């Protein structure tokens, strides 16, 4: 499909053709920008939890054979997961974007000082 389109497609060259499209506004700076490290955090969270699901998968498939014993093991494992999750939560790794409450607090503090 790509090939067909390449052959059939028309060609043109205009003034703004060679610039990144940013809603019509002229772009500034490179696209290799720094963005929130939150994204990396998500990547890491994913890596951790996704890998843990691998263990859950293998447990799930052998679930009947393992019985209560395996169940107990998995519950322990899940508790670990949850503890980690709680920790991440508390550590702020799960807070995406700014926290309104905090901003409000900081703002109040600031205004209180100014008064």
């Amino acid at each position, binding site marked *: 499909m790509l090939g067909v389109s390449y052959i059939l497609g028309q060609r043109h060259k205009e003034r703004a053709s060679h610039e990144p499209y940013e809603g019509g506004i002229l772009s500034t700076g490179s696209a290799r920008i720094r963005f929130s490290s939150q994204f990396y955090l998500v990547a890491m969270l994913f890596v951790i939890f996704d890998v843990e699901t691998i263990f859950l*998968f293998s447990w799930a498939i052998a679930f009947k054979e393992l019985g*209560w014993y395996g169940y107990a093991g998995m519950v322990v494992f899940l508790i670990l997961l949850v503890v980690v999750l709680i920790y991440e939560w508390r550590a702020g790794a799960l807070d995406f974007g700014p926290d309104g409450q905090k901003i409000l607090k900081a703002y109040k503090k600031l205004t209180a000082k100014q008064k």
Partner: protein
Amino acid sequence: MDDATISHLLITFGVLAGLLLVAPGLIWLERRLLALWQDRYGPNRAGPFGLLVVLADTLKLFFKEDWIPPFADKKVFVLAPAIVVITVLLSFVVIPFAPGIIVADMNIGLLFFLAMSSMGAYSIILGGWSSNNKYALLGSMRGAAQLISYEVFMGLSLMGVVLMTGSFSLIDIVEAQRYQWFIVPQFLGFVIFLIAGIAETHRLPFDIPEAESELIAGFHSEYSGMKFGLFFVGEYIGIMLISSMVTVLFLGGWYGPSFLPPLAWFIIKMFGFIFFFILLRASLPRPRYDQLMEFGWKILLPLSLLNLVVTGGIILWMNTH
């Protein structure tokens, strides 16, 4: 070539052709439905009920300039849209439409599906990154983050089904629902999977990576022509995929009252969900990105874990009593 091979080939191409034909059709369907629900006109010029608009769109896409931005990373730029379509199409390989109508009956079908849907993240990342455009990059970062996050819950929410079936094979799963659809015992799992599925296909309301109003068109801002078309088609095949998966996993697949053939039941259920997807688009606003992510990590993940634990416990308890 013996009969088995021929029938296998037939199924393969049948499924492929079906998908490629239906997907563009969905575009028309969506627009018509949106128009219906939002009380406006949909496509209505080309052909009866505007049906030919699909053809027109396709032709237009083919004749558009095959534009590769000079500032882009060319190889990757071309590769990215191809990945979408390929992965989504590959996922269909394991879907049992009806007894005997399946391209490849893998015993790890479910895992294969999960693996393929993870691959989708690559196309977004690569597409956004290779475009060398700030919006595209941001969109792709968001998209990737969203995709991989929901990937986790998606897998976890399915574990309940796996527990009840004891197999990763989708056929086994369907057959396990002969008497009771899993949507009943696994309702929580169903809900989570559905939400995750919507997020995976980055459909509205979870179309954060594209988010026209914020990011113009997100990761595919720089795409046009057929390459854009591929993203577009990929998205619609994705909707079908998720709908079929829900059908297979929770709604008993091809099972239904015997006055209709199994394939028909399957297609009915699938389209039911496709309608549902479109309805969502018509009715829900888009959440903020951070809300979306927090919702996933803070609510869906614990819920899916809880679902897993409770399901396991109940099954074991029932086995021993």
